[in-house]
């Protein structure tokens, strides 16, 4: 099967620093794929480069069989590649519902003129937004302003917004940061639901428990380079990952923790 998202030798340079150095990944459709790495490894830079927020200095990104290097962030979202932000970046002047709707709607050339005379036209976007609202369990918060929500709720809204235009692939940038264990586990369960809607997930986090438990395939990034890839079991066992990223004892501890969460789940 052809990979949904591929990068070939993707390199991002800030000044003299290679934030991403020759990164090659392939995300298969219908998978939950993970990217882990310590702080400063270049994870967010990688997401920014794929979604068009940072210009790569070398390499190519292919999405759904087409090269996307020249597309704007909005065009990539239109093509079915959406993302969340670590710092959420919600539309704080809009309600939860409008946050989702604005991502689901795609204007046509005449939309503006129609809006001038007839607002509130029914659109297919509403069903999409409704679905995104439902899958993240946000129905009760529908008409609230995002500024009135708790941090965990805002996090869910940001994920729902990335899902609202029914993307093919959603990139989640540290969705578990700032969540407690229960919330984090709930989120992990949600991720599996996305696959039923043909939404492939690319998860970036340093919460080892979450990544090792839900991801089918995992890449490990350190100092801008991919140092290991494989299934959760392979990554757990990989000595390079344990020494370079986790540190020996911490690695075991995390791995055990991950195993115990899986045991409960």
């Amino acid at each position: 099967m052809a990979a949904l998202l591929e990068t070939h030798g993707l390199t991002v340079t800030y000044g003299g620093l290679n934030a991403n150095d020759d990164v090659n990944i392939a995300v298969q459709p219908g998978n939950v794929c993970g990217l882990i790495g310590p702080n400063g490894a270049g994870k967010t830079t990688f997401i920014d480069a794929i979604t068009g927020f940072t210009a790569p200095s070398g390499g190519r990104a292919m999405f759904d069989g087409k090269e996307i290097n020249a597309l704007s962030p909005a065009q990539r979202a239109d093509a079915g590649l959406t993302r969340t932000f670590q710092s959420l970046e919600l539309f704080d002047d809009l309600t939860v519902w409008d946050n989702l709707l604005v991502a689901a709607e795609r204007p046509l050339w005449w939309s503006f003129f129609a809006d001038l005379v007839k607002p509130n036209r029914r659109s297919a976007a509403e069903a999409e937004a409704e679905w995104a609202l439902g899958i993240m369990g946000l129905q009760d918060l529908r008409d609230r302003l995002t500024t009135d929500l708790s941090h965990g709720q805002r996090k869910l809204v940001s994920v729902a917004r990335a899902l609202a235009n029914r993307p093919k692939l959603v990139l989640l940038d540290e969705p578990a940061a700032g969540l407690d264990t229960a919330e984090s586990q709930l989120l992990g369960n949600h991720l599996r639901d996305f696959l039923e809607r043909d939404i492939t997930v690319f998860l970036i986090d340093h919460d080892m428990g979450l990544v090792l438990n839900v991801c089918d395939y995992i890449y490990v990034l350190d100092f801008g380079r991919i140092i290991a890839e494989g299934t959760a079991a392979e990554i757990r066992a990989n000595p390079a990952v344990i020494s370079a990223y986790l540190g020996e004892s911490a690695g075991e501890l995390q791995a055990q923790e991950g195993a115990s969460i899986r045991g409960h789940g």
Partner: protein
Amino acid sequence: MRESIAYLLIGLGAGAFYAMLAAGVVVAFKGSGVINFAHGAMAMFVAFQFHYLKTKSRLQLPWVDFLPFKWLNIPVTINFGEGKMGFVPAFILSMLTAVLLGVMAHFLVFRPLRNAAPLGKVIGALGTMLYLQGVALKNFGSDNPNPKAVFPDGIFRNFLGLGKPMPKDSLSFAAFAIVIGAVLWVFFQYTRFGLATRAAAGNEKGAVLLGYSPERLALTNWIVAAVLAGLAGVFVGSITGALNPVKFTSLIVPALGAALIGRLASIPLAIGGGLLMGMVDSWSTTWLTIQSWWPKFITSSGAKDALPLLVIVLVLVLRGKSLPIRGTIEQKRLPLSPYPKRVMIWCFVLGGFAIILATGLPGGFLFHGLDGVWGLALTTTLITAMMMLSYVVITGYVGQISIAQMSIAGVAAFVTSRFMANGLASPDQPFPVSGLNWPWPPAALGGIIVAVIVGVLVGLPAVRIRGVQLAVVTIAAAVLLQTQYFENDHWTDLRAGSNAIVRDPTFFGWDMSAAGKGGLTDNPRFAIFCVVVLCLLAAAVANIRRSGTGRRFLAVRANERAAAAAGIEVPRAKLLAFALASAIAGVGGIMTGFQQRQVSSANWVFFSSLALLAFAYLGGITSIAGAIIGGVIGAGGLAAVIGNYHNPGFTPYVALIGGVGMILTAVIHPEGQAPFWQPAVQYFGKWISTGPIDKFPKFILKVLPGMIPGMLFAWWLIFIKAQEWRNWHLLIILQVGAMTRGIAKQIMAGVKAKRDGTAGAGHGPVPPSATSDSTPALAEA
């Protein structure tokens, strides 16, 4: 070649003045992140102070005696004996005045605004400017003295053998600016204070962690900036001739250009940029534009006026990033934009009210039908509200600050007039203007289309830059439109500074002319025409807010990065907003043309855009109701005309009150006045339509106690100041009551938040909609 060099050198004098102002703008920006539009006004105030100290030994403090008592007065004037004063004491006292201005600007305006949205800071600076102009008018009068140059004057007959005369003081000015620049540079480069200021400008949080108080740094920088303004006014200001209260304000445009050459950070570059701009100014007006190859469609001041624009646009566009990297520092957002409800009902109620005013149907309570004064005030209110709707779209919805909306309105008006012109002479138009001789509907449509094109061009820089920097670009564009189109007879075909004639509109044979039987602006049909147009525009803007386009606009305003990630083409959304706002402004411009029956270039200067923006902000820039209120309180609107009509002698205070009002609104209540009125009117409307009479008294009982102190105060002011009771005084009493209740509530909420310890770094009263962001700071990745 030798000629060119001589002309370049002659420009050093003006260049020195730009350089001095630019240096002050840079210092204020470094210290507080504010682009100080009031810098020229500060220089003006100190220049006046110095002149009156030297000639009359009179010191005027920067405020007025507003207390309505005979027995208790606020000291305004200090007399140091009779006659003239020596240079040194006058200079010292002037510089102390400058220090006082800096301290006041910091504590009363910019410290409270330090976390405000960029627009709030712009409004604060504009308010300061209006305030200083108002105070100068009141305290120094309007007799426009001609101050003597401080430096020795005289002329080098043949300077450096270049064959041209050169004024001596120009050289002294330039040397003075360079010395001041060098002193400042050393000061910022080698003192601990300078280092701390630069550190805080780079990362305020970091400077706090190192134990520096950004407050104290900002205060010191404001004082330095004000003293620089004072030095510029006292020493170099004489190059621009007679002093008057609005002096120096428009020189902020070249000064900003120079400051931007220094990226608002480097003083040597700002000084060099200022000198350079002065030199190129002089060279282009005296040499470049008289060359035979110079295109005739660019006026002789063309290159000079285009220069700041080009410099500003180039510097900003080259510097600007299309999308900011990661989230930016926490800043308060613009107030929420309310979801418009019951637009039709509002149109009928308010439109009907306006039509009643126009036709005088019931007569009696407020007006007696339409005469020239009321007709002008009513139609001006309606047209101003139209133009303010363009600010609701561009600033309220999309968050872009444009100071060229009046210029764009002017483009529509001039183009419409030209399309109507028929090349014949008439009593109104002794010099015939060639044109297409179109009737008004296609001519107006053409005007709107051209306005949209110009508006989108003006908005193009917004794709890369935002906030205050965009405001600066649009000011420069406004200046360019003014001199290169409205005042350029190559394009307007107007001779001898005459005005362009606009033919009266008709509607299926009905005469819709603004001029009725009395020949003044007293035709009720024209007022009805305005009501209909305003209602259509308001409905269109409300529809945009309630639809997908409006959601995308607000998403762009809230967060451009996230908007792009959500699939919104941010540049397209911004340009669409500029196009819509320009069309609305264009309609307003054409209606102004119909109202005045002619188009004059003086209507569209960028200061009128600033005033429009300011009053739109006072009314409430994020809502349609705010635009309507802005139209009522705006220049020439119902409120001002009623005020002047009944309380003559009030006029000198208008700018002053406007300035203070702007500062207070920006600091205390960025939502403007609209929210004060809306609940009451809505409640009243509900009461009328559904009739729960039992609830209305409850509502009154709920709000009235809080309003009483303000109402008593307003009644007392009117009782003392006004000659007699008028019915409309009741409206003012209610308004002041509602405002004071709102302000008191804000302050109490702020005090409560502080007591509960939730305010954190918050300062003073904060509107609830802006404080709700309480998400914990996220760990840096």
